[in-house]
């Protein structure tokens, strides 16, 4: 009792503000106070987001090289943009990116939705299976890249032995990461392995949001399971599937770390996705102006896709 009264006394002593400070705060309008609170965030955003973007846009019109920072900078206009947008090598890198994006998104969506559909049927131990399925998603891409490099080893890698077991081929007769035909598929497999659980989670959220009474009404109307799937499950889960497709599409369009660890763009340039080409231009050739223009082209593409993503997200939210 005594303790309680003592603490309340302490609280009472702590609350009053010195008259001068109180008068100063009281003198500020609501709007001024709001500005006071959001100014640090705005300054931080300007410093770490807006300024680098504006600076990159400026550099993309110049011949600036980061390894010769003191050399005079010449204004080139849209030369770099024209050069990139007519370069067959960059076009080829875009096609490698397209192969990677299309196949990973397709495989992840089909497998992810299938897994979500199975997990949604609450069987015994479904919680444990969900946790096991989600594990790859929680790993760092650097770790995944490293251990898949070992799994793909033709001599000691487990992957080759599994393929050999099912196909009857010699395990050391093919190299997933060293073969021109197989290496683009090797990175697709790893990405699908890692990110299918993510798509599954989103699809699961979509499936769980469908009210039971719709299925009950369909049962009353004697609709078959197949009909229920096509007329209820798929249309109602579609906004969520779209969301997963867009998110994975955007993420894979700018994929760098895993491809860099697995193949580094090789063999030759068969797995050289756009971000690897960008890294080579920026930090191996030191063509900063050129790579800035390339980065802006990629940024506009991602920004455009992100707009569609936000639109899809709003549609999901409004449900």
């Amino acid at each position, binding site marked *: 009792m005594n303790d309680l009264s003592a603490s309340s006394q302490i609280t009472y002593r702590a609350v009053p503000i010195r008259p001068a400070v109180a008068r100063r705060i009281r003198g500020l309008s609501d709007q001024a106070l709001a500005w006071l609170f959001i100014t640090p965030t705005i300054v931080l955003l300007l410093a770490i987001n807006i300024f680098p973007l504006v600076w990159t846009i400026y550099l993309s019109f110049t011949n600036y090289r980061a390894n010769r920072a003191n050399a005079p900078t010449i204004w080139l206009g849209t030369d770099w943009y024209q050069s990139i947008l*007519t370069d067959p090598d960059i076009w080829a890198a*875009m096609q490698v990116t397209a192969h990677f*994006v299309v196949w990973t998104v397709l495989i992840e969506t089909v497998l992810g939705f299938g897994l979500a559909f199975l997990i949604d049927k609450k069987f015994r131990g479904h919680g444990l299976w969900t946790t096991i399925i989600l594990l790859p998603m929680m790993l760092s891409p650097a770790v995944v890249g490293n251990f898949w490099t070992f799994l793909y080893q033709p001599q000691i890698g487990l992957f080759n032995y599994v393929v050999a077991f099912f196909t009857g081929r010699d395990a050391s007769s093919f190299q997933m990461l060293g073969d021109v035909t197989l290496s683009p598929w090797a990175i697709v497999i790893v990405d699908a392995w890692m990110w299918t659980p993510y798509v599954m989670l989103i699809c699961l959220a979509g499936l769980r949001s469908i009210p039971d009474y719709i299925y009950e009404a369909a049962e009353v109307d004697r609709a078959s399971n197949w009909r229920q799937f096509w007329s209820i499950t798929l249309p109602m889960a579609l906004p969520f599937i779209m969301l997963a497709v867009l998110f994975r599409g955007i993420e894979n369009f700018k994929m760098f770390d895993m491809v860099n660890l697995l193949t580094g763009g090789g063999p030759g340039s068969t797995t050289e996705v756009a971000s690897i080409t960008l890294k080579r231009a920026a930090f191996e050739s030191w063509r900063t102006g050129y790579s800035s223009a390339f980065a802006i082209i990629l940024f506009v593409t991602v*920004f455009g896709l992100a*707009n*569609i993503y936000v639109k899809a997200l709003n549609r999901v939210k409004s449900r």
Partner: protein
Amino acid sequence: MSLDANTSTLRRGLADRILRRGPLEAIATTIIAAGVVMLMQPFFLTLYSWSFTTTLFGTVMFTIVSKVRE
């Protein structure tokens, strides 16, 4: 006179239907998607060359029309 009034109403109705956020956003989204497809398609270099302009146009259009009333 009544003809004029009807025409103006019709015209306003058409403008109201077109100049709304939904349809305009759909157009901008289609342009962005077309730009991304043009960027990644393996068939025509000319389409690839115009992809950035198309995506940029779509993105700017989307940013503007998202401020238009519902």
